[in-house]
């Protein structure tokens, strides 16, 4: 046994150990990368589908995704962009860019109940990132469903945003009134006239709730132009839902045709 306290032994020991550990970790990371990427891609598909409906079976999710989801990319003006793969766009990176330069993925889901537009969201919770997907009806205002996920919110508090009871509350809520984003998460009593814009928050997770709220708003402002475009171009549900306002406000502008087109039943 050499003298384990000599300087040279210590240096050699440290170097060799660093090398061995570095090689082992690098091998583990690169060796597992393809499997991890596959898992991450699947998780993304599952998240997107979850905004519309929850499926458990892996095969079912992949089938649903490949058959019913169409990926497109739009720019900040709402025009479709060619040559970019929507699935590879990282919303976190896009949100850091100048708003005019953002490339925005849209996942159009066609199911039994018509088209749903699923858009990605990314924001900050209390401790770390939060993200999710929101599915919107073709009036571009009524929420079909949401899916939220997080990196490090507190279990039992902020982490509850991943639970179905929280996400289900968004069903049939409305994003905006006209151009104005209006949906908000709050605690305490709801006002009847705002019931389509209010979501019950999680007690003990106020900051995470604010984060979700900001994320929704940011996402809405990203896609505002695209939504407006779809509303004006929209065929069947078009005009009626194009001015999504509360009943009190609609009386001034609505025509019988409008009221019929507004299928969301306020």
């Amino acid at each position, binding site marked *: 046994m050499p003298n384990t306290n000599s300087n040279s032994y210590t240096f050699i020991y440290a170097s060799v150990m660093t090398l061995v550990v570095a090689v082992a970790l690098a091998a583990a990371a690169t060796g597992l990368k393809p499997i991890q990427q596959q898992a991450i891609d699947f*998780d993304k598909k599952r998240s997107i589908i979850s905004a519309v409906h929850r499926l458990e079976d892996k095969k079912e999710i992949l089938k649903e995704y490949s058959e019913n989801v169409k990926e497109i990319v739009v720019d900040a003006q709402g025009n479709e962009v060619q040559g970019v793969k929507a699935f590879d766009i990282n919303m976190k990176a896009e949100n850091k860019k100048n708003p005019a330069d953002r490339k925005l993925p849209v996942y159009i889901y066609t199911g039994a109940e018509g088209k749903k537009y699923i858009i990605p969201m990314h924001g900050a919770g209390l401790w770390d990132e939060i993200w999710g997907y929101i599915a919107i009806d073709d009036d571009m205002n009524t929420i079909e469903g949401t899916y939220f996920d997080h*990196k490090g919110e507190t279990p039992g508090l902020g982490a509850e945003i991943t639970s179905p009871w929280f996400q289900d509350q968004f069903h049939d809520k409305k994003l905006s009134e006209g151009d104005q984003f209006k949906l908000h998460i709050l605690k305490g009593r709801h006002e009847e006239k705002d019931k389509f814009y209010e979501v019950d928050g999680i*007690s*003990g997770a106020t900051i995470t709730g604010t984060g979700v709220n900001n994320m929704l708003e940011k996402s809405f402002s990203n896609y505002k132009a695209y939504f407006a475009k779809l509303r004006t171009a929209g065929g069947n549900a078009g005009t009626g839902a194009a001015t999504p306002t509360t009943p009190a406000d609609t009386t001034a502008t609505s025509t019988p045709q409008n009221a019929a087109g507004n299928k969301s039943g306020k």
Partner: protein
Amino acid sequence: MSQATETTTAVQEQKKDAWFSPKNRKLITDPIGDNNPITIQILGLCSALAVTTQLKPAIIMAIGVTIVTAFANLIISAMRNTIPNRIRMIVQLVVIAALVVIVDQLLRAFVYDVSKKLSVFIGLIITNCIVMGRLEAFAMANKPWPSFLDGIGNGLGYGAILVIIALLRESLGSGTILGYQIIPQAFYTAGYVNNGLMVTPAASMFIIAIIIWIQRSRNPKLVDIS
């Protein structure tokens, strides 16, 4: 023939000190009771506060810490005679961190769902004082097998306390256990309210203190140790 093999293995066991001799068994049982890492050694409190709002993360954290402590103990114990004294802490830390990273990578590849929920806690294992405490106090001076048992024992002792705290916090704070409602709706309509303090980290401090109090007052061996 079979008799012959039996006798040879018996002889080997006698020579080597049996795998689960009373002395070795004590390595597992001791940290669960009289030498508990949390309540007696007061180690690993940080994570005891962080992951005990619900029972499920507490159980998973306990399993993670048990695995990491056991294998880090085993590896360090096998290396113990070669480690230069002056950098032994760094060597220990490298072994722990490498183990934790590999576990995290494996989880991410094969059970991505679980890994997403746990990645925060997995990282926390590196900073868990119990792991390094056991390496320094036990594995550096003992043979690999006893060290491995010591790691398992301390992991379980840590886990036992975590589970007790989490059970109390989840049932009193949210009215559920493992996500299942245990307090009937009738109680809530009658005016029962979940204890909001229980979901905050401060609650686990109170609970740990109460556990320490009960344990020390009931066990005369522990009365004067600190």
